């Protein structure tokens, strides 16, 4: 099944037998852009101020961290893995970075390096348990979700770090904008571009698709699964760590519960963005658009005078719709391939 999904997603020659579905499939990103545009248009029609600079800035602030973490999650999900520990890694990194800054008053780039290092270390632990211990990613990262969160509680012990403890420059970075775009969102965009190029153009990135599509075939083709998996989890961890730095810079106040429960939102963004949960298919651009769509929905609800309480239900319905759509497309694709007597499978 997953091989078919993969072949249709990456080989444009395979057709589903329906032009409309073909379009949806090949331009999944386009579909998300259309959905985004329609939603923004509808909301703006109700209240034109939805497109004001202030409102857009709030939207980008809200989306920055989700987009960043969705990039890391995509890398892992492509390999048939999952990283449930990202929320806890974000919390750990946010707390460690904030306390380091409050003591030393170091500059923002140093803070980012600290956050990346904390996250990468957590990711390396995940990768080692998964690869060397042969523990399924779901179990391993569920375990480290607890371990990392427990570590933050242990370090913080009920205390919190306030904005007044943090260096001025760091908070300016968290709340400042360049040409109306928050610095935080710029960071997310740079990461998005880097991960996109890595996955699309570099051998190591293509290997991740191969591993997720068919691990056994990837092994036979000489791909060093261990090294690639370690890379994937370290990238995911490091980006969650960077997310922690952004969180600390944005909110100024950090306690032990930062990022609690965030993991499911990130998985939702990635799935809505068209990354197959069983690996091998999807792009980081799609995942980022998924994250953006969720952020837009969140900000549009109050404008549309829909009860804020609908937000989570809509996210759930979107996830179900996204995976059902993928399934429908892959079923039609396999049927079309069979009737044509193709040997692609």
């Amino acid at each position, binding site marked *: 099944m997953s091989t078919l999904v993969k072949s249709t997603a990456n080989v444009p020659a395979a057709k589903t037998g329906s032009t409309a579905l073909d379009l949806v499939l090949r331009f999944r990103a386009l579909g998300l852009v259309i959905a985004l545009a329609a939603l923004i248009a509808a909301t703006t029609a109700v209240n034109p101020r939805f497109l004001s600079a202030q409102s857009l800035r709030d939207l980008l602030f809200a989306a920055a961290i989700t987009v960043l973490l969705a990039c890391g999650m995509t890398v892992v999900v492509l390999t048939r893995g999952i990283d449930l520990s990202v929320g806890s890694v974000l919390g750990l990194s946010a707390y460690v970075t904030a306390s380091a800054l409050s003591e030393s008053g170091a500059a923002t780039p140093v803070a980012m390096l600290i956050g990346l290092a904390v996250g990468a270390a957590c990711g390396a632990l995940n990768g080692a348990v998964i690869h060397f211990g042969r*523990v*399924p990613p779901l179990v391993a990262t569920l375990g480290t979700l607890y371990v990392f969160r*427990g570590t933050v509680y242990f370090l913080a012990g009920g205390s919190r770090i306030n904005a007044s403890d943090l260096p001025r420059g760091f908070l300016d970075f968290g709340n400042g904008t360049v040409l109306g775009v928050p610095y935080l969102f710029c960071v997310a965009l740079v990461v998005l571009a880097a991960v996109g190029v890595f996955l699309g153009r570099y051998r190591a990135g293509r290997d991740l698709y191969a591993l997720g599509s068919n691990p056994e075939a990837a092994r036979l083709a000489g791909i060093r699964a261990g090294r690639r998996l370690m890379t994937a989890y370290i990238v995911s961890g490091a980006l969650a760590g960077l997310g922690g730095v952004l969180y600390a810079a944005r909110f100024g106040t950090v306690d032990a519960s930062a990022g609690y429960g965030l993991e499911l939102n990130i998985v*939702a963004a990635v*799935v809505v963005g068209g990354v197959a949960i069983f690996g091998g298919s999807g792009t980081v651009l799609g995942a980022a658009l998924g994250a953006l769509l969720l952020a837009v929905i969140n900000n549009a609800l109050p404008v549309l005078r829909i009860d804020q309480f609908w937000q989570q*239900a809509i996210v759930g*319905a979107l996830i179900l719709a996204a*995976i059902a759509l993928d399934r429908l497309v892959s079923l039609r694709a396999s049927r079309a391939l069979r009737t044509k007597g193709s040997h692609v499978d």
Partner: protein
Amino acid sequence: MSTKLRDTAAVRLLTTWDAAIIAATVVFLAAAAQTVEHFGTARNAGFIVLDLAPILILALAMTLVVTTGEIDLSVASTVGLTSAAMGVMWNAGIPLETIIPAAIGIGACLGAVNGLFITGFGLPSLAVTIGTLALYRGLAYVLLGDTAVADWPRAFTGWTLGTVGETAIPNVLIPMAALVAVFGIVLHATAIGRSIYASGANPVAAAYAGIAVGRLKFWLYVTSGAMAGLVGVLWTLRYSSARADNAYGLELTVVAVVLLGGVSIFGGRGALPGVLAAVVLLTALQNALRLAHVSTEALTVVTGSLLIAAVLAPNTANAIRGALRARRSRTA
């Protein structure tokens, strides 16, 4: 020959994870009763039973679901939604005698939706139940918002917290014991149980052996939903509060105890005694830490580490066994 003996003895110790977890539970309970003040009292045991009831009931159904190689992450949200629905029905003036079966029915329907997506449309259960996790919790908020319904009749909330007659046995222990017996018998002593193991171990072979794997899994999701509905009732009455965020985040604890109890996440392996021990161990540990005024944060780290160890230990044992076998075949 001697190598083989050493091999099996060492390996058996590591591989029978449920034996280890049951032993650990017994040792812990004994040690805590001696060292932690107030831990061994009947009153405290009653509190532990009340605390573990929701986890245990959800874990019973989750054990069956995971044994078939699937997962249900939506259970805690189902608890929240049934609890919210109870609140709405109570506000509408429906008597509690009607609400309770209705709540369990709602849970079963929510489980059926999961089952339909997973077995009917052939979608991965992990993705579907992450979707319904968000959906059901969201619908709970739609129903109740951030308000709470708290005016539950004393007769019912009192029963939930009360004990049988003059004894120290909590009332909730009786339905719990009945459920444990039913699930234990179904999983370990009936054809359905064998089908569950077969479906998890090798779904294709199970289908060829005449097991309707899809239908079996569908009904397991319905069961899981109904159990979550029952927990919704218990939770609402115990805390005398129907809220949309009831049992928030409990799904991870339930999955954790099931895996800690030695059930394989890949399906086909596991048993209820280990899961029961894991539930008791985790809840009692939390209780003891609280009594000893140790922060429960330490427990979070322990839970996570144990969870990984539960899978790591058998894997390591297999690796040791493989290495020993390789050496034997070389020397032979």
